[in-house]
């Protein structure tokens, strides 16, 4: 497992498309050190590996899938109303294939 370092923090931030200042990077390291310490202690809990991780708030969580019936989609105008850059019915972005030109 790679050590949680300043470089790793920067790499993760880059993958998340987030820029971090030096100060923010250090805050991540400081906060994570506490989480790491506490979760390492968890590994010493007796039989911890036999516990099934809880992923939902309700134990009796159940749901029924809706009928597979087509319903009207939202109007394109509504879908695009919060888009800063659009052309007609499409979102406008820089060219993503074939290089930058």
């Amino acid at each position, binding site marked *: 497992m790679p050590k949680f370092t300043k470089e790793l923090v920067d790499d993760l931030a880059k993958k998340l498309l987030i820029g971090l200042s030096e100060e923010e990077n250090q805050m991540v390291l400081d906060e994570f050190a506490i989480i790491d*310490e506490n979760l390492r202690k968890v590994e010493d809990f007796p039989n911890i590996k036999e*516990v099934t991780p809880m992923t939902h*708030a309700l134990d009796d969580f159940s749901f029924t899938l809706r009928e597979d019936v087509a319903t009207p989609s939202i109007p394109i105008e509504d879908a695009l109303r919060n888009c800063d850059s659009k052309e007609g019915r499409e979102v406008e972005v820089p060219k993503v294939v074939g290089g930058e030109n």
Partner: protein
Amino acid sequence: MDKTIEELHELLINKKITSKELVEEALKKSHEVEEKYNAFVTILDDAKETEVTDNLLSGIPFGIKDNYSTKDILSTGSSNTLKDYVPFFNATAVQKLLDAGAIPVNKTAMDEFGMGGTGTTCHTGIVKNPWDSTRMTAGSSAGSACAVAAGVYPYALGSDTGDSIRKPAAYCGIVGYKPTYGMISRYGLFPFASSLDHCGVLCRSVKDAAIVVDAMKGIDEHDMTSWDSRDIHLYESIDGNVKGMKLCYIKELCDSKNYPNASEELKSHLKNFMEKIELCKSLGMTVDEVSIDEKLLNALPSVYVAISCAEATSNMSNLTGIIFGPRGNGKNYEEMMMDHRTKGFSPLIKRRFVIGSYILQKENQERYFKNAGRVRRMLVDAWKKLYETYDAVILPVSSGPAKHLDSDKDMLTKDTAVLEEHLQIGNFGGFPSITIPDGFVSDLPVALNITGNCYNDSKVLNIAYALESAMDYKNQIAKEVK
């Protein structure tokens, strides 16, 4: 606006006041509260009265936390990444209140996307506590708590992923209630950590909490985690009869001997809480002290951060500024997204995304994400074990009254007391949980919390109602002490 929903309804029905007058008063107060405490993202100056019907909520103004989608009304989640975002639909909970004839008059400021607990990370600035403007409201439902406590209206919507309704309610001297997970649809609520997110209400009395949640709840085809609660009638089930009910409190959290460096405020808070335990007994309830493994409790804050950060990282990956949100600068889409996210998110959010991402890396999942889920299971099982014997767990909220604004920057520190974070267990297990004011320390309100087993909302509200009725803090409006 200093009255309960029942009282306002009575006045409306008897034509002693009009809905128009209430709206005008709520808007006037909104501007005053905004000026003094910075509680709102948007004030809806064009809000109009509604017809008064038999519905208790008709004709009465309310507030909406800014992470609820509101059709044609700015909904920012208090984030610069959505500073101009205007939804084209209403969240189900909001729509149900509109259908009841309730009138939204403002959108309340919050910690960005609900990811803070201080009320200091809103993109519109810090929300101040109406009891003492040098203190926090707590968060994330900061503006809702502030506005209800200041008497803008009888209730406002909140959301609660860790304690985001129940802690600000405590700091502002009001009631904060999150029902069982899924009782209220989350459709249209900006997601933070989906397995922990709850909708709920901040108000000034237990009956008001019941009235509002009765109106908001119900199964919703747009939220597959919602469930059918048509047989649950919260308001009607409140009768104050708690004789024979059994409560417990956790020794490790409530015994002042566990805090060798306790402040005077903490000592007073715990002493006050123990007096309320005696009050419970005088009302005919039995109350036992029980113990929970301290190691398990101590893991709580880190487990919460691990789970919530991991879920948030995933949930908020759609905030790119491409399809919605302010478009970032850059010569390709990646640079645009990076510019949007770097400028848009506060340092707290960025930090938590990075931690969440690390935890979710394949090689780290076992040690962090899965172990956090295991501890979540163990804590929930421990509470469910208590519910085999007890009707509810009663505990003090936080370590005293509202903290000073310069004292806590939402950083998880080594000395983070479990006392500050224990309400998160209510989110881990989806338990119904209500905070009510239970006294004053340093002239500021303090509170206790009652949490019961899933689906036992009526029982939890009844206990809270009985206690509220035996104390003097029902429907209190903030009196500025500083």
